[in-house]
């Protein structure tokens, strides 16, 4: 049933005549109840597609070396959903919810939930769907990816989304970059400076000639480019200036250094 609905759904802008903002209670009563139900079902499915896509992007970064084509296609899908949600006003609703209810420790939990594989989620059913003001979500079962609602619990979005959105909404920009730093993972992380001669010797025969010069230069200049292990940490830090951010980015650097040391030591 899910598939058929997906195949038949029309983008929001085509349904604009029958659509009203969900926060507008009075109008809903006058609307065709069927179309509202279709809309809410569509929104839920769209949300679940968004969640699924974000999980896939997460997993991309955990694999040996992510498939760039797949990551780009998923990221573009996320972008499209997010653009549509921005157009129909669903996006700010979520972000406001986020703003009011979240604190940094919540964001850390969010990362952990999103890092679980979809198989884990099946068992634990920890995902929640945003509730619009006067619309209770129904339990949505979609093949093997289970997304259930717990009432009035705000949605956990990864903060690459949230962080960007919070800042950009203030500027009223419709520049979408929900996949901030997704592709940073594919760049070489700034090399760790090691004066230790034995480590230099270890790397002396490694041919780095094919790494981009610009990548190396950005690394040297310290522009944050992320290695594959940093995305998890970045998700738990908003990139707006705050003490929380600086703590977490220090931590990510240390994690990276630890990881490199592990490889060198061969533990």
């Amino acid at each position, binding site marked *: 049933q899910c598939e058929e609905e997906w*195949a038949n759904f029309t983008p929001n802008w085509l349904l604009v005549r029958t659509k009203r903002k969900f926060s507008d209670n009075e109008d809903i009563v006058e609307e065709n109840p069927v179309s509202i139900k279709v809309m809410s079902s569509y929104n839920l499915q769209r949300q679940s597609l968004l969640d699924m896509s974000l999980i896939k992007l997460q997993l991309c970064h955990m694999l*040996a*070396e992510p498939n760039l084509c797949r990551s780009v*296609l998923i990221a573009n899908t996320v972008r499209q959903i997010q653009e549509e949600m921005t157009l129909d006003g669903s996006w700010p609703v979520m972000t406001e919810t986020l703003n009011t209810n979240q604190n940094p420790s919540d964001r850390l939990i969010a990362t952990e939930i999103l890092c679980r594989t979809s198989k884990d989620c099946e068992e634990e059913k920890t995902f929640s769907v945003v509730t619009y003001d006067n619309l209770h979500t129904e339990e949505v079962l*979609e093949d093997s990816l289970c997304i259930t609602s717990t009432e009035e619990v705000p949605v956990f979005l990864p903060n690459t989304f949230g962080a960007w959105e919070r800042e950009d909404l203030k500027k009223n920009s419709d520049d979408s970059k929900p*996949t901030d730093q997704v592709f940073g993972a*594919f*760049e070489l992380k700034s090399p760790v400076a090691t004066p230790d001669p034995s480590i230099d010797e270890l790397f002396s025969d*490694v041919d780095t000639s094919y790494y981009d010069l610009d990548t190396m230069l950005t690394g040297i200049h310290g522009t944050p480019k992320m290695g594959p292990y940093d995305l998890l940490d970045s998700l738990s830090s908003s990139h707006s200036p705050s003490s929380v951010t600086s703590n977490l980015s220090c931590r990510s650097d240390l994690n990276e250094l630890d990881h490199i040391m592990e*490889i060198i030591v061969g533990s």
Partner: protein
Amino acid sequence: MTADIISTVEFNHSGELLATGDKGGRVVIFQQEPENKNQPQCRGEYNVYSTFQSHEPEFDYLKSLEIEEKINKIRWLPQKNASQFLLSTNDKTIKLWKISERKKMPEGYNLKEEDGRYRDPSTVTTLRVPVFRPMDLMVEASPRRVFANAHTYHINSISVNSDFETYLSADDLRINLWHLEITDRSFNIVDIKPANMEDLTEVITAAEFHPNHCNTFVYSSSKGTIRLCDMRAAALCDKHSKLFEEPEDPSNRSFFSEIISSISDVKFSHNGRYMMTRDYLSVKIWDLNMETRPVETYQVHEYLRSKLCSLYENDCIFDKFECCWNGNDSVVMTGSYNNFFRMFDRGQKKDVTLEASRESSKPRAVLKPRKVCAGGKRKKDEISVDSLDFNKKILHTAWHPQENIIAVATTNNLYIFQDKLN
């Protein structure tokens, strides 16, 4: 054993040899037996000719990532002498292999015994000329060139130029031109990497040289476009000569539209007038003189269109199917799920679905056409969409350059079919 998963299949230019590459980095070459005079209806069978380890797993210490040994593509060079040459590539490194036969052994050395021990020169009283004596066939594969360190991203295509001196290799963001004799440098001819990786929205998915014009090549993208480039125009072919793109059908628009438009393979016809592209649901034939839309479109498995959500979830929507032409460009073939593969006869406007499996094909038996029931009442012998096995996918197929012999790779089996001659 996952290492046995076949990852590429390719006939050589005469069709006598068929090479397969697998996930474990091995290349297996099959050779067609000469025709049997007793059975003139049957062309020779293909038997194993040579097996060798082409690529080994590597570790990139700077990125701390493993480099897979899986063979992504094999391309044969045209035969110039008694030996055969092929290019095989994994994600990062291309190798040129020489495959040579040894059927004769020299015998009768003056200074060496038959077992190899050296003779004392003072015991030599007469001189003789060593002669070659026949021996059991030995096929040796030796790496002649290693083209490394030119790709930051994963190599998806290699293509030998019609000048037979150069070839191109393409990864997600760049295409490099090599000379077969020179391994320490290559020319970058296409670069679509954005200054800021966060702006990346499109990647290169396949590339191929034109079969006759050695200055022309095409590359396809994840957004469903094909660019034809002329190397004479500029050193860096960032500006295409032609851009092939079909406008989107608004009635079929969904969040999955872009993903299913991503082109997984592009192949020129043998005559060089057309090219074929494969996207998730269809095969399209393009006339090189018309950029606005394909001249022919064939639906491979349209019944999957209503299942895109599930296929996205289980990642099948990212499967990269290849396609191929027959020798005279009249039929095209591509794979599907459930070990099905499809053939489209362009002239007769007919298509057929066949299955590659042990159960349905005994040797010498004719393959039975299959049919998938999209919905409604399922007829006898039809298979419903919901019972398709999406783990049994045929991604790699190849067609003999002259005869009606096809090679179809299921996950870890190779099927070779030929049509009956009578």
